[in-house]
C-alpha cells in the first residue's frame, strides 16, 4: 500500500489512480456552478441571446439537432421541446463532467426520451455525413483548438439545407462600449469567478479567450471557407455577442 505511486493534485499528493477522479470532481464542482456564473456574468442576458438562437434555428418537430459544446444543456433543452418524440437532440461536449451535469439538468427539466448524450470533440464529430438539420455551438467555438477544422466537421455532418448557428462573444461595435466591457471582463469577471467558484484563473482565462476569438467578419470568412453559403451574422448587445448563421446548400 505504501508503495503506491502518488502524484500532485494542487498542493496535495494523491494516489495516481485517484487523480482522474479528483480532477473530474473539480470539474464537477465548477460545472455545477456554471449556470449561476452564466447568469451572474451576463446579468441573465445569455438567456436572451440563446432565445434568439432558437428563433433563427427554424427547428421543427422531427428534426435532428446537435448542440455541440452544449455544457449544461440550455439550448438542447429548448430543442428537445421543439423536435418532440419524432425528433432527436444530441447534447455533445468534450468534457465528461460537463456532459454529466448536462444530463442531470436535462432529466431535471423532464427530458428523457429524445435526447442523447455524447462525449465528442467538435473537431472530429463522430456522426455520419449529412445527418443533422441544425447544429448549434454556443460559447464553445472559442475554446476549440482548431476552429477551422471544427467548422468543416460541422459542415460535413449537416444535411444539405441544414444550418449552423454559432453564438459567441465577438467585437463590440462602439469604442466606448468596448472600453467599459474591457474593464468589466478583466476586472469584474475574475472577481466574480473567485467569489462564486473560488476559481479566478478560469475566469481570467475566459476574458482572455474572448479577446482572442475571431471578430464578426473573420468568423464569417472562416465559415465560408468551410463551405457555408450564405453566411450572415447578427450583433447582439452592441456586438459583445454575435450570432452567425451558415447554411449548407
Amino acid at each position, binding site marked *: 500500500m505504501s508503495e503506491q505511486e502518488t502524484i500532485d493534485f494542487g498542493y496535495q499528493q494523491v494516489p495516481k489512480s485517484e487523480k482522474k477522479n479528483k480532477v473530474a470532481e473539480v470539474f464537477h464542482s465548477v460545472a455545477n456552478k456554471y449556470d449561476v456564473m452564466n447568469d451572474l456574468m451576463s446579468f441573465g442576458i445569455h438567456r*436572451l441571446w440563446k432565445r434568439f438562437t432558437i*428563433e433563427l434555428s*427554424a427547428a421543427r*418537430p422531427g428534426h435532428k439537432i446537435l448542440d455541440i459544446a452544449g455544457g449544461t444543456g440550455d439550448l438542447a433543452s*429548448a430543442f428537445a*421541446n421543439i423536435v*418532440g418524440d419524432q425528433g432527436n437532440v444530441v447534447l455533445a461536449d468534450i468534457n465528461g463532467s460537463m456532459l454529466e451535469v448536462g444530463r442531470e439538468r436535462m432529466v431535471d427539466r423532464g427530458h428523457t426520451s429524445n435526447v442523447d448524450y455524447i462525449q465528442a470533440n467538435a473537431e472530429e464529430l463522430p456522426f455520419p455525413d449529412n445527418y443533422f438539420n441544425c447544429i448549434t455551438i454556443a460559447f464553445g467555438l472559442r475554446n476549440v483548438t482548431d476552429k477551422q477544422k471544427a467548422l468543416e466537421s460541422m459542415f460535413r455532418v449537416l444535411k444539405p439545407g441544414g444550418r449552423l448557428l454559432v453564438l459567441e462573444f465577438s467585437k463590440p461595435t462602439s469604442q466606448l462600449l468596448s472600453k467599459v466591457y474591457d474593464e468589466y471582463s478583466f476586472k469584474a469577471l475574475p472577481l466574480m469567478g473567485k467569489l462564486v467558484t473560488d476559481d479566478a484563473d478560469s475566469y481570467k482565462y475566459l476574458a482572455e479567450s474572448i479577446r482572442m476569438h475571431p471578430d464578426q467578419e473573420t468568423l464569417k470568412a472562416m465559415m465560408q471557407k468551410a463551405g457555408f453559403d450564405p453566411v450572415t451574422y447578427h450583433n447582439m*448587445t452592441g456586438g459583445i455577442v454575435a450570432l452567425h448563421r451558415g447554411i449548407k446548400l
Partner: protein
Amino acid sequence: MRTLKLAGIAAIETLVNQALKYDPVSKKRLENLQGQVFGFHFQQPDLDVYLMIETQQLRLMGQWDGDTQAEVSGLMKDFIQLASAEDKTQALMEFGLQVQGSTQSLSVLQSVMSSLNIDWEAAIADVTGDVPGHLIADGIRFLASSAQSIIGNLDRSSRNFIKEESGLFAHPVQAEEFSKKVADVRFQSDRLQARINKLKQQMEAIQQ
C-alpha cells in the same frame, strides 16, 4: 434593441406557461397543435410575435424563420376598437383583421388562450409600461375572445393574404421605435399628472 424585446416576450411566455402548468385540460387540448407556429402582426405600434406550440408548453418568439400554420395581422387601434365593440361581426367588417392559413388551428388556439386564467393587461403592463400595456392587452383579449367570430365570418374570397401585402412585413420589428413610443406616452402622462397636481395645489391655495 433586440434584447429588450426578447426580454418582454420571455416574460409573457413565462406567464402563459405558468398558467398552462396548472391547467392540464388546456394543456391536453394543445397537444393536437404540437409543433405548429402562429404569427401575430400588430401594426402601429408595430409588433410581431410568433407562438410555437411545444410538447409541454408554448414558446413566444420575436421572429421566426420558418413556416407558420396561420398568421393574423391588424392595426393595434383596430384590435382595441374591436375589443370594445358590442357587435363584433359588424365591427369586423369595418376594421378587418387579416387572417392567413389554417383558421381551424387558430380557433383551437384561441379557445385555449381565452380559457386560461391570465390577466393580459397586467402582464403586458409589466413588460411595456402601463399605458400601452393596457392597450395591447385589449388587443390580445380581443384576439382570444373573438377570433372565433372572425374565423366564422371570413369569406374565403375576401381574405386578405398577408403575404400579398408583404411590403408591410418585410422588415423586422423596430422594437426600438416601439419602446420609444412607449416612453413618450409615459413621459407625456407623467407631465400631465404633474400639471394636474400643480393645478390642484393652486386651487387649494385659492380656496384657502
